[in-house]
């Protein structure tokens, strides 16, 4: 095993082992231990970044999907299941985002444990979540991908049901049942592909090798619906507002920040990768639904009266832009989707942290009861303003690239349909501004509604400032995310033509 292979395994194994250790060790050290594990997990993630340079020499050997480093051992041959992990330019930014957000959430939990259960259990669940999500992003075997995809489900259910708001059980049940429905379809798709092609190896499968046209159509349809539930794509989104609104702050952050990305990542890696003909066939429908999601998400946000629910619905619109980028199946669109994914994770993660902070202080999330935040807590209002302006896609901040270039990609695709979708998406961008400005006007401007204490705790600064800094950094240097995506994206789009 090379260093990078050790690091790949460590990336998944560390948080899993950490969760196990938390369950065994006494509760009083739980908080510090969990945060330490989350921090240590960042080490292999950082080391993996250097694998990129070492791999560039043999990148041309396998054109469709060439991981910087991969680790492959056979696990259950009968099921075409290998323990095959690998990282490339498409997955790496999401891996890094997951590691970062989990660390921030663990640190935040050290300072504030949401009511409902013990900190130890919550932290253990967060680490299991991290292991599952990282595994999903790193899996290079289709069946393994499915396994990790499922690992995430129940811990998230438990986080919502255990530490959530008043209607947490209902929301958690809806979340788990809805996404299980998607998982069933994903399983069907995975089995179809694995049995037909005789392998689950994504490196072999990418580009649609060994799959007939009709198999690809069927597989993509199954994948698309499954991932559309996760992403979520309108009209399969209704689990999301309830889950977000009821989840505790750290749950919302993980949910919006990285869990949704499993859907869009899966659509790119598995959907477009394994069934490119199917993707080409279904692209117009996907594009139309994505544009509908952008508009519907924005319009619904205009009518929301609750802070967290509004931000939850805003995710529908933002993920609509990401899905529109994917649906164009152009290199521009896919890269826009990749950076949009990361940007949404950073910005919406920050927004949920802030919404949590405001709700904890004001004891209400109703927009009508809030107001005058810039008078009572100017710093908090300033960061909220920054996050809102970033989220509405201000150029120079992270949110811009994904959204603007999704529009550019749709224009590039050309023709009546895609031009219309580009126009609709651009209008959706203006509506996004409308609801975020409405949010700011209700929360930060105007007379003071519910007084909010001005102080910001150290743990809060620790959780927020990396997100603020990265939002600015990705906005100014988009290459941070896109630097290694050219080759994989071109390989993906190359398979379509």
């Amino acid at each position, binding site marked *: 095993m090379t260093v990078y292979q050790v690091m790949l395994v460590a990336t998944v194994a560390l948080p899993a082992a950490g969760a196990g250790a938390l369950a065994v060790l006494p509760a009083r050290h739980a908080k510090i231990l969990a945060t330490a594990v989350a921090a240590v997990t960042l080490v292999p993630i950082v080391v993996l970044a250097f694998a990129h340079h070492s791999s560039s020499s043999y990148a041309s050997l396998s054109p469709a999907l060439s991981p910087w480093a991969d680790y492959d051992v056979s696990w259950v041959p009968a099921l075409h299941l290998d323990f095959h992990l690998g990282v490339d330019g498409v997955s790496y930014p999401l891996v890094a985002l997951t590691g970062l957000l989990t660390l921030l959430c663990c640190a935040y939990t050290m300072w504030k444990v949401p009511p409902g259960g013990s900190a130890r259990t919550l932290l253990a669940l967060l680490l299991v979540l991290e292991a599952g999500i990282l595994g999903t992003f790193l899996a290079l075997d289709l069946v393994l991908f499915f396994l990790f995809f499922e690992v995430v489900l129940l811990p998230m259910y438990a986080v919502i049901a255990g530490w959530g708001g008043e209607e947490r059980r209902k929301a958690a049940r809806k979340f788990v049942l809805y996404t299980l429905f998607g998982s069933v379809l994903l399983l069907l798709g995975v089995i179809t592909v694995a049995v037909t092609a005789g392998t689950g190896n994504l490196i072999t499968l990418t580009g649609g090798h060994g799959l007939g046209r009709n198999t690809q159509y069927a597989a993509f349809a199954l994948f698309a619906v499954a991932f559309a539930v996760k992403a979520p794509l309108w009209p399969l989104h209704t689990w999301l507002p309830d889950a977000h609104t009821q989840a505790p702050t750290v749950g919302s952050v993980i949910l919006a920040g990285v869990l949704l990305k499993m859907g869009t990542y899966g659509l790119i890696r598995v959907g477009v990768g394994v069934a490119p003909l199917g993707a080409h066939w279904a692209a117009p429908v996907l594009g139309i639904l994505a544009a509908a999601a952008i508009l519907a998400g924005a*319009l619904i946000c205009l009518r929301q009266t609750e802070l967290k629910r509004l931000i939850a619905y805003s995710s529908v619109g933002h993920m609509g832009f990401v899905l529109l980028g994917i649906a164009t199946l152009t290199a521009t669109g896919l890269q826009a989707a990749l950076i949009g994914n990361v940007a949404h994770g950073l910005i919406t993660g920050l927004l949920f942290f802030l919404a949590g902070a405001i709700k904890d202080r004001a004891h209400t999330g109703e927009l009508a009861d809030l107001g005058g935040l810039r008078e009572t807590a100017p710093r908090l209002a300033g960061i909220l303003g920054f996050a809102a302006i970033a989220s509405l896609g*201000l150029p120079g901040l992270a949110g811009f690239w994904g959204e603007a270039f999704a529009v550019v990609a749709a224009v590039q695709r050309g023709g009546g349909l895609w031009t219309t979708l580009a126009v609709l998406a651009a209008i959706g961008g*203006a509506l996004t501004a409308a609801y975020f400005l409405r949010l700011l006007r209700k929360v930060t401007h105007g007379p003071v509604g519910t007084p909010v204490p001005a102080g910001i705790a150290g743990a809060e600064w620790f959780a927020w400032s990396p997100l603020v800094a990265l939002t600015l950094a990705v906005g100014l240097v988009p290459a941070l995310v896109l630097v290694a995506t050219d080759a994989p994206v071109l390989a993906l789009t190359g398979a379509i033509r």
Partner: protein
Amino acid sequence: MTAGVLGALIPGVPLLLGLGGLTLRASDDQGDPAPRRSAATLGIAGAAISLAVTLALLIFASTPIDANRRWVTIGGIDVTLGISVGDAALYIAVAVCVVALFVQIYSVAYLHDDPRYAPYAAQVSLFTGAMLLVVTSGDLIGMLVGWEVMGACSYLLIGHDRRLPEAPAAAVKAFLVTRVGDVGFLLGVALLIVETGTSRISVALAHHYSTATLTAALLLLLAGVAGKSAQFPLHTWLPDAMAGPTPISALIHAATMVAAGVYVVFRMYPLYEQSAAALAVLGVIASITILLGALSATAQDDMKRVLAWSTVSQIGYMTGALAVGSPAAALFHLLTHAAFKALLFLAAGAVIHVVGTNYLSRMGGLREHMPITFWSFVIGLGALAGLPPLSGFWSKENILTAALHATDGGGPAPVWVGWVVWLSALFAVAITAWYATRLLLCAFFGVSREHGPDGPDWEIGFDDARYTRPRTPHDPPAAMRWPIMLLAVPAALLGLVAYAPGFRSALELEEPHLSAAIVLPLVLLALGAGAAWWLWREAPGEDPAVALGPARPFLAAGFRLDAVQQTLVVRPVRALAGLVTATDERVVDATVEGTGVAATRLGGLLTAAHRFALPGAAVLVLGGALVLTLWFGAAS
């Protein structure tokens, strides 16, 4: 390359200092002046350094400066970090920096008791930097960044004043209306980028497009221009934006924001030249805007709103000049307008600072107490109306000549566009003179109306009736006075530089020729000003706007276009939002919930079907056993 780096400093320094300033602690407690001082230092330094760099480049560097490096490549589309400035761009940058510098200095005194001064100064820096980025960027995406950051800063700054209940709404309106225009701008940029495969402006300008694509892209860009430059029908945000602090009004109106749209058309002019259709649309928009702004300005009671509407009208002159094929005249007017409008707003701030009201009906008689402010107003309003030899006269003359010239044909624009622009511009000269004279008379002449139409009133109290003396107005403190006095110089004299060959060649401006054609505008000017003065003389102390009669409320409401916008856009969008939300809850989500409920019920039914009492169940089990036994017995 060094010139390129220096060029990047022009927008870079204010942007960086602005970002740094945002992290400063707001002075919550009144006692500590340190945060204020560092905020002021950062703000003033940002504008001053930019100004110095720009001047240095203008004097020492050989232009045009063009430098770029790769920023990011997205799907084969190269986005560059580029600086591309010619002399004209540098002159605009100088104007932006000068106005921003004066605004920063002025604000120190104007906002002396504002605890949120620190973020304010930082936002002004960001605003300035964003405008400079638009001016200097050699890349469409870079331009878009500046363009939108400006929108966001205008939002933050217009909503700054916490005491004004209308400020947050005005701020939202400013951002949203311009953002609606930006839908078009983004799509236009997207079209150009997709066609050329890069976002570099120089490539975009040299590329050969099909007529349909070009016209579509240019018209889409115009939507953004109309939003930012407050052109009909997206001008509605500008008068409301007066809720912002007065220095911000000066910044928005003189050098940033509204100038950006005009500058972008100027920057893309090689493309606009090729499209008569785009120029025709621009010409019609410009003509409507010129008249709309001028007529609406006649009826306003709020001094700042008079100036705001006059900006709408004057920007119309600039876009009109662009439409008739004279970008040089547009840019010249942009520069003179920057000088005299900044002067007017800063002077208006001085008046408001002293009188405590924006309303002309509560002013009057300020001439003796505020001589400096008065004379600034005389210069500013004279330039606005186009009184020779003040700056506005020369630039407006240029535009009228260009429009008249376009009526001969042969230019890039259709002949009828020349006529439309020329006639509306000419007519507006008289109206402008009228409302400028009215503003001057109402604010500075006659008696003080601070205590109502009947002069000083008596205050009722417990002891003997007390007489409240009107406060004695006075000229503003030095930090506010000096910017005003210094701005008066270019407002008065900038027109004469049209005779300076270096400047003229930089702008590609034609030599001023004072032919017989200037007589007509001057006569109209005299008519307009004379009419206002005559009305005032006939009924001293009475607002000349009374003469507008029943049309006055209509004009004061800006032709009620706000109501139209409310009916045509805002309400339908709200209704649609309600509809979509209801659909989402009652149809989409209800289906999901319904599936769950149906599954539960079905389960309940099946459970019920399995529920048997013990005897029945025993009989069934035994019966089953019997059947199986018989079955297998028969089989074997």
